[in-house]
């Protein structure tokens, strides 16, 4: 680490006081790095998380530039060669890498458009759930007492009813088809997780001395929450938000599969699988590939979330022996 031999200082002048420069130069002080630098270091040590990160970036790009990336339209039926295009197994011919469906539509393109929907909906859900959940959790945790009680009872109310059932009910009657509405309904399911975590964190942070010091200095509640406590909770919030993204992808797929979530004309991977199911089991790729894509994306998100958790939580034991 530090070069020990070369840096011997001259004799000190004052008698009776040690030369503290020795302390720094003889390898006693480790180079101080910022917290984020350490976190970044730790994250990049996880090869799986890094690989997943790149995968997700690729997926994100595909999602954003779906129109450019997909070789065919979502509903594009090749009318000039209809018979020859129906129900093709995956092939390199005409770049039908995922084959075609019962109407001759290129499946890879359909899946790409489905990814786009999933991608944006999941991000939207995570953002909305995180914002709302953090707000509720922070207020509950910071003020404690009656406010906390009230808010937690409210959360309990929501938790008492099975989430999926509420989702199905709500989307059956309110949000069918439209990605935005489905997103809002999904966020309604996911915010409680974040709220609970943030509440727990704020409850314990509230007791810490630096909060008392800030109060004594006359800082307003909002300032204390936003500037002092919130930064300390960013780690767990980010990790949980990542998990919400993964969860949202899976739940959205399930919803559209069951016919309650996003429906045509919007692209939805779950719907693709549902349609594929209708083909019996002969055109097996119709069911297989969209699901595989979901698995890969969800895996990647989970790995990244795991890597983030390790990176942001320095108390983990990592002695490898």
């Amino acid at each position: 680490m530090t070069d020990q031999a070369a840096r011997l200082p001259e004799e000190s002048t004052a008698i009776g006081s040690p030369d503290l420069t020795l302390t720094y130069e003889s390898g006693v002080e480790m180079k101080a790095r910022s917290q984020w630098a350490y976190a970044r270091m730790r994250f990049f040590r996880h090869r799986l998380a890094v690989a997943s990160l790149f995968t997700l970036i690729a997926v994100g790009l595909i999602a954003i530039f779906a129109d450019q990336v997909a070789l065919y339209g979502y509903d594009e039926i090749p009318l000039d060669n209809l018979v020859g295009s129906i129900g093709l197994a995956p092939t390199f011919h005409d770049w039908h890498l995922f084959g075609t469906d019962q109407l001759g539509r290129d499946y890879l393109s359909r899946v790409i458009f489905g990814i786009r929907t999933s991608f944006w909906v999941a991000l939207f859900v995570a953002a909305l759930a995180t914002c709302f959940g953090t707000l509720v959790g922070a207020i509950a945790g910071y003020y404690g007492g009656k406010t906390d009680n009230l808010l937690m009872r409210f959360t309990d109310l929501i938790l008492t009813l099975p989430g999926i059932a509420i989702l199905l009910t709500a989307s059956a009657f309110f949000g069918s088809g439209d990605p935005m509405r489905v997103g809002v309904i999904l966020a309604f399911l996911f915010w409680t997780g974040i709220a609970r975590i943030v509440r727990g964190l704020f409850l314990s942070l509230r007791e810490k001395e630096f909060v008392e010091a800030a109060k004594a200095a006359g800082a307003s509640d909002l300032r204390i929450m936003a500037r002092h406590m919130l930064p300390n909770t960013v780690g767990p919030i980010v990790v949980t938000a990542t998990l919400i993204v993964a969860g949202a992808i899976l739940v959205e797929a399930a919803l559209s599969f069951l016919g309650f979530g996003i429906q045509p004309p919007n692209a939805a991977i779950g719907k693709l699988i549902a349609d594929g199911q209708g083909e019996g089991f002969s055109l097996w790729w119709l069911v297989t590939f969209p699901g595989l894509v979901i698995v890969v994306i969800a895996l990647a998100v989970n790995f990244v979330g795991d890597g983030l958790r390790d990176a942001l939580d320095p108390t983990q034991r990592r002695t490898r022996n």
Partner: protein
Amino acid sequence: MLTYVIRRLLYSIVVLIAASIIVFALVVKGAGDPLASLRMTPNVDQAGVERIAAEKHLDDSVFVRYGYWVKDATTNQFGTTLLTNKPILPDLWRVMRNTLQLVIIAELLAILLAIGIGVLSALRQYSKFDYTATTFSFLGLATPVFWLALMLQVLMVNIIGWTGYHIFPIASLNSVDPGSGIHFWIDRAHHLALPVLVLMVASVATYSRYMRASMLEVVHSDYVRTARAKGLAERKVTMNHAFRNALIPLVTVIALNFGGLIAGAIVTETVFSLDGMGLYFINALGTADPYPVMAWLMITATAIIIFNLIADIAYGFLDPRVRYD
């Protein structure tokens, strides 16, 4: 302890009532007119439609309808379905029994398996077993339940195609003529094999990870060090001290996962065409009939409340620090 339980139950009833009001309003408002399609169909006796509307109070305000619902729910087996006038509760009981079979078997197996995997992974941290188990956990958590169910069906069909063997049935609770007594139950088990497998995957993935983490934490704790310092055999240290304590957080995880279980059950039953609560709910939603939907939600909510209460009591039983007396 008793006072705590009673207090919890009372509080839960209040929550249930509050929830029922909100959900009822949601369902009724959102469903719109359940007779809409009938009104628009030619050849349907519109007078008859109006009669049904009047009977079921479809034109009254939300509050009035809620009142009628409460009356029906408490006194009349949750009332009857809108169009077919079938009593709801008997149907609900039937499907609930079936779903319980599926869910209980799946959860019990999942818990046992997950505990084993989690403990072994923790004791052999970073070994091949650990990495394999972790990989499968991640896979399990990333796989959509409905897709896994479908894939298994595809697999079974293909196996039949290649080899002619029917390993596991892929649909419904029983064959057409399953016999009686033990034959019935063997047939049922045969049919439930795949659904149970599918339902287990997510649970095992979740529980084993938590068990592993909990075990790891406990194994490095001070009291395990004390046990070793006393000269206890390693086996006793692991079983008496580490394992017992590591189990405690798992109870909470299992309780929290109940909602996910229900979700998984709904999807699994749909794919495998099982006559259970999940399929019942989907169909009820399809008819836009508020009564079965409400009945279903109330029963499920009650189940959740009871389940959570049991989990809390179990937790207190395992961890003396938390007992309520």
